[in-house]
């Protein structure tokens, strides 16, 4: 048990493991995949050494990992898994099952490009392709935020009874070491008490969970899921404020910086926000009115916040390290749909860049701002950094 707060230089993956330790997870079920393996290796050590009073089920696939989490969560245990890319895709069926069964499972997904061709590098398409599965999705920028989002994830999930996916970029976050504050257990326990499931399968109580729902009842179950997602917005903000009081760090649905008087805005998510911040800071030093918005929570989608923040601006560049084939970058689609009901909308341009882990440098983002400044209308996709 960690009795005093300490700062360690650890990778994003290990930050996730420490978040799981501090959350007193009871059942872990996971299957190895690069670049997630360090998460479960450290958790295995925590469990083997007795540091965690948990069962670690070393399943034979990600599909079974999620199935085992679902089984354990159905009887009221706090459960966790971690995966990436192909593994997340294999889990897809059970992602729907976890949310439909209203189980507050928390998972870390390390963003990695999907094959073929094989790639182990960062790309958000794996997690964004799961956007309709009923999981809350949190895109983190730092290792500290990864640790904090695991704890916050359980807090919010157990309040609204929906699962949470905490998403980290492969290598840029998962394998990059940075200082992370690891809180003392007592304070985390104060924030996150043991899980007391309001609905669970109980020995001796003859109830069935998940049985056949005919067209007379299925619809209402879906509406309740959407209502839970709506409640999650408020829960994320309220628990974020409580967390900030105890630990000194606030996380909301979106993070805005350099926005006062900003005419052009960069919108992005994940580790790329750090690169964008460096670029925007440089542009601000040059006197250009550029702002930065990082979408932290992708589900539930922050419609209200984005309208408030982006309304009245001239131009918005959405940077997508992902692609919905036959459509656009996925954050671009979603930002546009959020802004559509507004009478005066900014010009929104979608840039697809960095797929499969291709490097995105501050100079790229500065050049994107120059490109955005020239544009009077938005093409379908602006490809950035593609070799022709």
């Amino acid at each position, binding site marked *: 048990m960690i009795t005093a707060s300490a700062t360690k230089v650890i990778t994003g993956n290990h930050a996730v493991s420490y978040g799981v330790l501090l959350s007193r997870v*009871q*059942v872990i*079920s996971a299957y190895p995949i690069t670049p997630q393996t360090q998460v479960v290796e450290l958790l295995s050590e925590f469990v083997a050494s007795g540091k965690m*009073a*948990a*069962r670690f*089920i*070393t*399943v*034979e*696939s990600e*599909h*079974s*990992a999620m*199935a*085992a*989490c*679902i*089984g*354990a*969560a*159905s*009887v*009221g*245990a706090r*459960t966790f898994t971690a995966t990436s890319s192909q593994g997340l895709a294999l889990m897809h*069926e*059970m992602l729907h*099952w976890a949310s439909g069964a209203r189980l507050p499972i928390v998972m870390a997904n390390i963003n990695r490009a999907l094959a073929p061709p094989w790639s182990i590098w960062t790309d958000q398409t794996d997690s964004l392709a799961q956007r309709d599965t009923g999981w809350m999705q949190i895109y983190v920028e730092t290792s500290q935020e990864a640790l904090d989002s695991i704890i916050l994830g359980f807090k919010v999930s157990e309040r609204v009874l929906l699962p949470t996916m905490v998403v980290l970029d492969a290598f840029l976050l998962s394998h990059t070491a940075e200082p992370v504050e690891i809180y003392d257990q007592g304070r985390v326990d104060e924030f996150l008490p043991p899980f007391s499931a309001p609905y669970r*399968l*109980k*020995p*001796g*109580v*003859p*109830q*069935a*969970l*998940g*049985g*056949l*729902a*005919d067209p007379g*009842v299925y619809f209402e179950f879906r509406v309740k899921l959407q209502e839970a997602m709506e409640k999650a917005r408020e829960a994320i903000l309220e628990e974020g404020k409580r967390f900030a009081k105890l630990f000194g760090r606030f996380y909301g649905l979106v993070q805005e910086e350099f926005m006062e008087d900003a005419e052009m805005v960069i919108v992005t998510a994940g580790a790329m926000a750090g690169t964008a911040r460096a670029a925007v800071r440089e542009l601000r030093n040059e006197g250009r009115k550029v702002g930065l918005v990082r979408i932290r929570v992708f589900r539930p989608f922050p419609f209200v916040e984005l309208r408030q923040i982006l309304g009245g601006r001239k131009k918005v560049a959405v940077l997508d390290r992902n692609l919905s084939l036959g459509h656009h970058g996925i954050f671009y689609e979603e930002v546009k749909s959020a802004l559509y009901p507004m009478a005066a909308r900014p010009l929104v341009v979608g840039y697809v860049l960095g797929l499969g882990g291709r490097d995105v440098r501050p100079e790229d983002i500065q050049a994107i701002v120059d490109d955005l400044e020239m544009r009077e209308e938005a093409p379908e996709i602006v490809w950035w950094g593609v070799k022709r």
Partner: protein
Amino acid sequence: MRTGTLLWAGLEVPQEEYLHPGHLACQGCGAALAMRLVLKAVGGDVMVVLPACCWTIIDGPFPYHALRVPLLHTAFETAAAAAAGVKAGLEVLGDTRTQVIAWAGDGGTFDIGLQALSGAAERNEDILYICYDNEAYMNTGIQRSSATPLGAWTTTTPEAHPEDRPKKDLMAIMAAHRIPYAATATVAFPDDLIRKARKAKGIRGTRLLHILAPCPPGWRMESERMIKVSRLAVATGAFPLFEVEEGTRYTLTYRPAGLPLKEYLKLQGRFAHLTEDQIAVLEKQVEARWKELLELHARTHGTVEDIPVVPFGG
């Protein structure tokens, strides 16, 4: 509700019922009877994990539930993994007593759920896995599975091209995992089924019961013939009853009564198209299987003389 026990075939059988009337099984459903008998044997301190199968329907639609024990519905291929999760969850919450039963059909066991079952068995998860085998995908309308026997008609192995591969040997696969206990049973020998289920209950680790559960609509037979066909499956040697302990110690429950296989086949419309030559092929296959099993029994017990002949009253 009746309580207490009934002494029957030398076994104390609880009168308590865990299967409510009003369930949605077809007339003469082997799977419904299998559930009734297993729960009688194991008792009420259980949780059932149920993947997609006939029992998904038999248990009744929301908000109905035909069993007097808790039940978790789960996806088709996940019975063993979800059951392992339930067991782990109960244990970390301090409940080491509740038996977790994964209850799957042959499709969910032999086919789509085999990977998860292999994983759970290899890890020796403390679950009682029950496969009720009706030898095809009955819930979706009689499509062949890898448990469908050679020569059988199904809607995906029509008469012009009936099933051309032998039934997958699930017991050999499970034995290869060296799980503590695996046994076959049928609903037509309830004393044997109850004895095996109780034995399984008393063992920790992965235990598997492979229960032949005939399906009157799927096997193309009258519902009142279900028990008779189950008995003939054993009496003719088509479905041998045996136990495997630790993957190596084989004990045959009965030896066949020497009845021709035809007696079993002729009651079922799914075999009606077979010619005499084709039946001869099936007979050879059954004989070969028996030879293997007798050798495995002899290797364990040093003799085959101790195997009783199946008590078959016709």
